[in-house]
């Protein structure tokens, strides 16, 4: 799943369409759009507001270990040599209010220019004094909120330049929509390539999980020994082969189970089988 946030509806609109999202009625005081592929949150403006909205959605719809988060939106750029409509991927976010820096890990190949971004808490009408190239109003808050749910390599911030932060510049909704439509393809392609490329852990299917649970119950294992057994199964899976097959063979050859000749009746008896199973795993 891709979790995507934008401050304004017009920034998110091209993505809502691209990911075929529909409005999620479970959220009544903010706009959230969902599909099988994406969850899109319209956070509102300002770092605190953005962080609160994102946290609420991530708590209600918790991401898995392989899901990714992206923030998309427009930004100002005091450097007039930048091009309006150019999209940057952010390698450093400075929270202006806290004088703190946050760093998303950029581990994947991508084709965007990179930039640092300063998050300010109110709209800038003058070019900032910062040497940094870009500024927005949400990223620092979003980074902090997302960090509870995503590792630093699964967070991406894309900012599309909308203005040079000059006095009196106003960026209308239609223009924002046009800019984000222009940015859409590059961002969605990048996200598709990032998604699922991170580290994967061994997981068991529902039926495999049932076999493991029954085995643990059968052996009367204490909570600590259940953990130990799970680690042992993982060891076997990584070193030797199919752990579920090993369990099934063991149950069969030791003839343990209901109606079989051997049925452990206490933790003490279960421990004996545990040790025997361990020996076989290490053999």
């Amino acid at each position, binding site marked *: 799943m891709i979790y995507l946030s934008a401050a304004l509806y017009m920034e998110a609109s091209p993505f809502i369409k691209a990911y075929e999202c529909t409005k999620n009625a479970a959220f009544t005081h903010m706009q959230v759009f969902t599909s099988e592929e994406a969850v899109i949150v319209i956070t509102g403006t300002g770092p605190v507001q953005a962080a609160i909205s994102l946290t609420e959605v991530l708590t209600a719809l918790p991401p898995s270990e392989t899901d990714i988060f992206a923030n998309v939106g427009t930004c100002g750029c005091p450097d007039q040599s930048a091009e309006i409509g150019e999209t940057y991927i952010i*390698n*450093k976010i400075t929270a202006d209010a806290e004088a*703190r*820096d*946050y*760093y998303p*890990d*950029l*581990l*994947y*190949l*991508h084709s965007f220019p*990179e930039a*640092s971004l300063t998050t300010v808490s109110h709209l800038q009408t003058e070019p900032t004094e910062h040497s940094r190239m870009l500024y927005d109003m949400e990223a620092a808050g979003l980074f902090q909120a997302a*960090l*509870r749910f*995503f*590792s*630093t*390599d*699964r967070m991406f911030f894309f900012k599309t330049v909308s203005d040079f932060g000059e006095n009196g510049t106003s960026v209308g909704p239609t223009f924002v929509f046009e800019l984000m439509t222009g940015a859409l393809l590059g961002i969605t392609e990048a996200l598709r*390539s*990032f998604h699922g*490329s*991170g*580290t994967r*852990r*061994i997981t068991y299917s529902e039926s495999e999980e049932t076999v493991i649970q029954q085995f643990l119950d059968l052996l009367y294992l204490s909570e600590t020994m259940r953990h*130990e057994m799970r*680690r*042992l199964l*993982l*060891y076997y899976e*990584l*070193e030797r082969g199919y752990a579920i097959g090993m369990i099934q063979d063991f149950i069969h050859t030791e003839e343990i189970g209901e109606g079989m000749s051997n049925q452990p009746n206490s933790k003490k008896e279960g421990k004996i089988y545990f040790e025997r199973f*361990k020996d076989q*795993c*290490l053999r």
Partner: protein
Amino acid sequence: MNDLKTSVFANQFSHIYVEKGVMEHPRTAQVLRRFSNSTVVECSSYKDIFCRSHQEPSTQRQSRSLILAQGNAAIYPGAKVCQSMGNEHFYYTSCVMNCIYDCEYCYLQGMYRSAHMVMFVDLSETFRELDKLLAIHPVYLCISYDTDLLAIEPLTGYLAEWCEYLATRPNCTVEVRTKCASAKTILSLPKLSNMIFAFTLSPQEVISRYEHSTPSLKLRLEAVDKTVSDERKVRLCFDPMLALSDFETVYRAFFNEVFETVSGEDLFDVSVGVFRISKDYLKNMREARECSITYYPYTLTNGVYHYDEETEQRLFSIARDELSKHLPSDKIFFWTEC
């Protein structure tokens, strides 16, 4: 599958974070020249990147970043699970945190929450601290525990700087532990009697399976041979020995192969250790990476996980049998206590 995965990752050191305070340091310039295509990001403190919460070292390893920092590489008394090799005043220091190699059993995965690499560019404070210690007693110092300094020498020049320092401090003996096979780099350094090159050797089966990106046994042995031929002090480290299936056959063949290339007489000494790891580190390592070494059902004694007594003794006795054919017992050091 792996190839497919690798292709989506940026190059190693595609990003170099530089603390503001060391932007102008000559070592920074040297590194940045070498990686002129990398993106340079200025930072206030290396900790803002290296010590962030919620990092994913397994993914970071695919595209490590480099962090250049001011920090001081402090000098610490040697840890309990390390070998002092009979030296009374045993210390270690790390001017680099993390390593370009990727050994699945490496304790650094338990020590740091990041796989990115930090280089403290300035050694002068470390040298000052060391001088204070040397004024009190001789020092035996390991400088390449939390990294592999030889492997990054062409990039950093740290060993050359250490040599310059050591040339006038005969009461300071330094061990440079390495899996690197670049004899060329070693031979380019001044020859010092107080610098020991400690090559960690493992059976090729272990190298192929667990010591990712490291040179083969054959190349390491060639480097050992060239280093001893140049009359430098060489230690061989057979550590960690692992309880692979069929370890008896694997390790006996391995020791044979080693001593077909190297003569025991040419060695300064050898050290032997069986895999062991502190409880806290193992917990972190299990979180950081799924691998069979970390998930092995070890025995816990005094806060250290290790193989059961019988397995440990079998591994030690193979080493003892094989090594005693080539070296006197006072040149063989075993790590034995927990």
